């Protein structure tokens, strides 16, 4: 092996590291370690001057291995790999020692923290000595896209991609396009017609030659990896039974826009939904509004309408989260009810009025101006609905412990509207399994990063948009749908995709075909080659989690950049009896 010339860079991270770790002592200690050619400390290694320093040092001192002792590799590994690349050094001849998150931030004894930083940096040096240059692989990107779900998000994604000239397969399990939005009359806060929004989209989808629409269909299987997926689309006959032959498509990326379902109000017995005939859900009211007549079960025009918020949302019993759209939808109902019957008394019983979006506060203000009675109740202290007595001029009476006045208020109602929240669809687990993405505790699909990667997932080539990710309103769903399209277009435009060189591989000269690993891969990257009698890892699918490496009984599977010798060298260094002074 060529002589190791290791450059070690110790970051102060402003005072984040320096306040607890004596970086100069770490530098002094490390400079005495064999093969360490150069040691430097710097205020912010990740800054441009910091990186430039590494680039120059590599060139001037013929450094062939770099260690940066700084923050977590998930923060800046990419940054420093970039510096190595810039200097013409293979980017994998690099190791980070985490002396911030795992050291300075979590300790309060500077002396011990400094020793620990020395040990971590020393271990990184011993490890990097064994690093080998690795090359990334490139795979072709199939430009076709599969969009699952024909609601507003799915159609928007499909149109965006098809309008850019790419083939889209749009799969909708229902017999019509539009999703949940097709069940809605007007939209908040501008009271635009949902139908108008949808008709334009649906017409464009139906007329677009680049979109192949599969209604009443399901994606029944998916194989392959980013750029090279194969999916089977199957027409569903009646009760989910499979009739016709599946239709196979080749795609490079997948947009999952499977939407939500509304909370089932009968799960809350408290409001008497299903027992009291005139307690209805928001979607049932939508249906009435769309049919043009708001009336009670008895066919009377209600004189008093009460709207109750947060049904199934924001409580420990059902869903702890806020469903985000119900507050504005409730205000929309105020307007719709009042415009249908200006004499109607509407009370709006809420916990907090979440009017966070653009135009929402104004909408709230306008709603109060139409003489709506707003009543605030305490979370967990739900209003109680009684049948009214024969002398009352209403169907029901609602008792509310009104929070702002502190009084128990009784209000009349002929019709009670329960604002049911959003929840993950019952088939969301099936979809998640199909496309290999994760769900959170509530069943929503998990994004790659909640802030910086809101539409990507941990599986390359699988994107998520709309209310299958979390409750959201139409503008947010559309924005996500367009973001997905943009992400996919960016991938397509590159033609090929680079796959990180850190992946696991099977040494075919060692693999005996025991098949221990076959079912363990969370990314479905392992296939068994029957004829050759050994297993194979599709490197483009591998995320280097190491599950198969641990499971391989004969060490035929090796994790690149995580070989036994590299990891053991690191552990050996950590537990060796070195004087940290």
């Amino acid at each position, binding site marked *: 092996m060529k002589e190791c010339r290791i450059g070690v860079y110790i970051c102060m991270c402003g005072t984040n590291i320096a306040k607890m770790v004596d970086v100069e002592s770490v530098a002094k200690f490390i400079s005495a370690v064999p093969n360490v050619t150069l040691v430097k400390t710097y205020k912010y290694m990740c800054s441009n001057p910091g990186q430039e320093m590494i680039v120059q040092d590599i060139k001037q001192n013929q450094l062939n291995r770099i260690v940066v002792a700084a923050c977590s590799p998930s923060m800046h590994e990419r940054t420093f790999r970039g510096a190595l690349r810039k200097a013409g050094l293979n980017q994998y001849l690099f190791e980070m020692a985490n002396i911030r998150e795992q050291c300075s931030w979590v300790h309060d004894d500077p002396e011990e923290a400094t020793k620990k930083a020395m040990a971590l940096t020393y271990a990184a040096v011993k490890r990097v000595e064994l690093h080998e240059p690795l090359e990334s692989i490139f795979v072709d990107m199939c430009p076709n896209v599969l969009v699952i779900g024909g609601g507003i998000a799915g159609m928007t994604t499909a149109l965006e991609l098809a309008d850019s000239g790419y083939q889209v397969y749009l799969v909708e399990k229902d017999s019509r396009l539009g999703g949940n939005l097709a069940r809605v009359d007007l939209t908040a806060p501008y009271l635009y017609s949902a139908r108008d929004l949808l008709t334009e989209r649906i017409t464009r989808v139906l007329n677009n030659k680049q979109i192949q629409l599969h209604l009443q269909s399901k994606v029944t299987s998916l194989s392959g990896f980013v750029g090279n997926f194969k999916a089977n689309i199957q027409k569903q006959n009646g009760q989910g039974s499979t009739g016709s032959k599946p239709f196979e498509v080749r795609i490079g990326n997948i947009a999952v826009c499977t939407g939500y379902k509304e909370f089932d109000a009968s799960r809350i017995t408290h409001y008497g939904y299903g027992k009291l005939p005139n307690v209805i859900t928001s979607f049932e009211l939508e249906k009435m509004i769309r049919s043009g007549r708001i009336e009670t079960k008895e066919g009377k025009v209600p004189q008093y309408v009460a709207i109750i918020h947060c049904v199934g949302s924001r409580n420990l019993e059902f869903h702890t989260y806020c469903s985000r759209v119900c507050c504005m939808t409730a205000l929309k109902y105020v307007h719709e009810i009042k415009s249908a019957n200006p004499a109607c008394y509407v009370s709006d019983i809420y916990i907090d009025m979440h009017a966070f979006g653009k135009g929402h506060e104004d909408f709230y203000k306008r709603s109060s101006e139409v003489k709506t009675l707003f009543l605030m109740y305490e979370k967990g202290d739900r209003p109680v609905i009684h049948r009214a007595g024969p002398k009352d001029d209403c169907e029901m009476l609602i008792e509310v412990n009104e929070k702002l006045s502190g009084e128990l208020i009784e209000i009349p109602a002929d019709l009670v509207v329960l604002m049911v929240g959003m929840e993950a669809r019952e088939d969301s687990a099936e979809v998640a399994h199909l496309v290999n993405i994760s769900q959170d505790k509530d069943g929503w699909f998990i994004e790659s990063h909640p802030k910086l990667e809101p539409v990507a997932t941990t599986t390359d080539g699988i994107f998520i948009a709309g209310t299958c990710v979390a409750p959201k309103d139409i503008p947010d769903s559309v924005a996500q749908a367009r973001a997905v399209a943009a992400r996919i277009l960016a991938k397509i435009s590159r033609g090929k995709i680079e796959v990180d060189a850190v992946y696991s591989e099977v040494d075919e000269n060692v693999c005996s075909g*025991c098949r221990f690993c076959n079912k363990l891969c969370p990314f479905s990257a392992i296939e068994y080659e029957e004829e050759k009698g050994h297993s194979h890892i599709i490197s483009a699918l591998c995320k280097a989690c190491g599950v198969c490496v641990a499971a391989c009984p004969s060490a035929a599977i090796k994790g690149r950049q995580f070989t036994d010798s590299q990891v053991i060298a690191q552990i050996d260094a950590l537990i060796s009896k070195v004087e940290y002074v």
Partner: protein
Amino acid sequence: MNEQKPKLKLAVYWGAACGGCCVSVLDVHEKLFDVVAAADLVFWPVALDTKYQDVEEMHDGFIDLTLFNGAVRNSENEHIAKLLRKKSKILVAYGSCSHLGGIPGMANFFTKEEIFRRVYEESESTINPEKIKPQPEYKVTEGTLEIPVFYNDVRPLDKVVDVDYYLPGCPPQTERLVEVFMAIVTGAQLPPKGSVVGAGSKAQCEECTRTKTDNKLIKKFKRPWEIYDDGVTCFMEQGVICMGPATRSGCGHRCIKGNAPCRGCYGPTADVTDTGAKIMSAIASIIDSKEPAEIEAIIEDIVDPAGTFYRFSLPSAMIRRRL
């Protein structure tokens, strides 16, 4: 008369061993004639009456090939190992004990004191009220008697001397020995020093004819008597721990052919760092549960995990003994 090719000088020695390895050498049967036609046996305590002193008098490198079987357990084993290293051109660690520590190596789960206490005081067949234990030296009127010093650890051969090749097995398959021997005799290109010879590079499953599917997940571990073995399905898929997936081929999967799971005597494949740790990590990966309590219960069914997973390899493992 043709000038005869000089015969090879061959030595076989046993350290801490059961004798099975020496018998495996005898098992060459009529091929013995080929062996003695090509080689002179210069030292083989189980069969010949050569003395240690005779070996000491040989010049360095006198012996062409030494098959050293057995582990290094006491000072005598160590002395002869060092002596034979000096006298031999090629030193082969022959059999599991010499290769990895073998069955005697499981004694490393106990200290010398514990072993002596058990053997010389506590064992059911022992009556030793004076608690007499082996003494390396004992003075009698005629002089001083000596026996080898019993070490605290059992070591494989390569922890004591430099080893050229490893021929694994408990005992090694005799056919493999003959192949290796004939390769040396015929002057064939020998593999690089440190290689395992007379064995395959893949695990047993490669040769094993039982049906293997991806259905490896285990809900319950069973011992062989707990299953109705159909003779066809992979042992692991029947819940029986088989060391085959972690063990080099080369024996002709003798145990599996006899409907018994592999015990692992051929040792791990080349890149395994720690045999027991590797198979444990593999088996842990296929336990079919995500509930800690259930996993705990499933693992409880593994009888003698240390003896199962480190049966032949404890002295060469990263772990040394129990805590």
